């Protein structure tokens, strides 16, 4: 058991806990945007932790796990963003406590003729 192994186990543990918390967040939050908030952050860190942790446990796997991790770190926020935008465009209003807290309301994006 070297230092790397301990570090690896620690990372995997943190990772799975955050994966769980992310899923819990998705389950508990009240609307799409808040779910995305919880889901994206926690599952991204969770996945990064798990994957890189495995990479540390098996040093010869490290480079490939790093690639997966980088890819997840780039792609996850993008898909969350696209989902948030899509949800807004089909008319799902975010839950707010006060009325004027939606700065995006009424903003037009340009459409394109195909």
């Amino acid at each position, binding site marked *: 058991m070297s230092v790397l192994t301990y570090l690896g186990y620690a990372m995997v543990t943190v990772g799975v806990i955050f994966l769980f918390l992310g899923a819990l967040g998705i389950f508990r939050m009240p609307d799409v945007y808040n779910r995305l908030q919880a889901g994206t*952050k926690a599952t991204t860190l969770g996945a990064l932790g798990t994957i890189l942790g495995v990479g540390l446990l098996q040093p010869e796997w490290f480079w490939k796990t790093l690639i997966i991790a980088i890819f997840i770190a780039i792609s996850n926020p993008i898909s969350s963003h696209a989902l948030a935008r899509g949800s807004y465009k089909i008319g799902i209003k975010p839950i707010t406590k006060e009325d004027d807290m939606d700065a995006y309301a009424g903003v037009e994006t340009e459409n394109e003729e195909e």
Partner: protein
Amino acid sequence: MSRFIFTFAVYFLIWMGFTTSFDPQELIAGAVLSLIITFFSYKSFTDLGLSFLNPKRLFNIVKYMFVFIIALFKANFDVAKRVINPKLPINPGIVAYKTKLKSDTAKVFLANSITLTPGTLTVDVIGDTLYIHWIDVITKDPQKIYSEIGEQFEVILKEIFE
């Protein structure tokens, strides 16, 4: 040309990540395939080319990684705090955020960083305005929004991409 070489280098590195081997056969195959893909995508891949690799930028990239990872951890503990709390303490809303960045790639990285950092989620980018869903709106003053949400990234990203 410098863009071409830079793109090729990036692809080749990724290929080595895929194969994790220094076998000459793998390297040659990787070089050939990276070259083919570079040919039709180098124009869209990067605007900077090899100048990306000067030491100052590299240093900033490392710095960015650190800032980012710390922010990511903060974000997650924030989320954890909110999720585990039975009362769900949230006060969500969407705010507009003016960025000073010009390059598109930088904006994208900024948006991604914002999405992954505490309590914020980018909903749209129009021109230089980012619309951000904020889980706990503590202010509506544009200047404070700027400093609260993304200043720390913006400074570094400016160094890297512009």
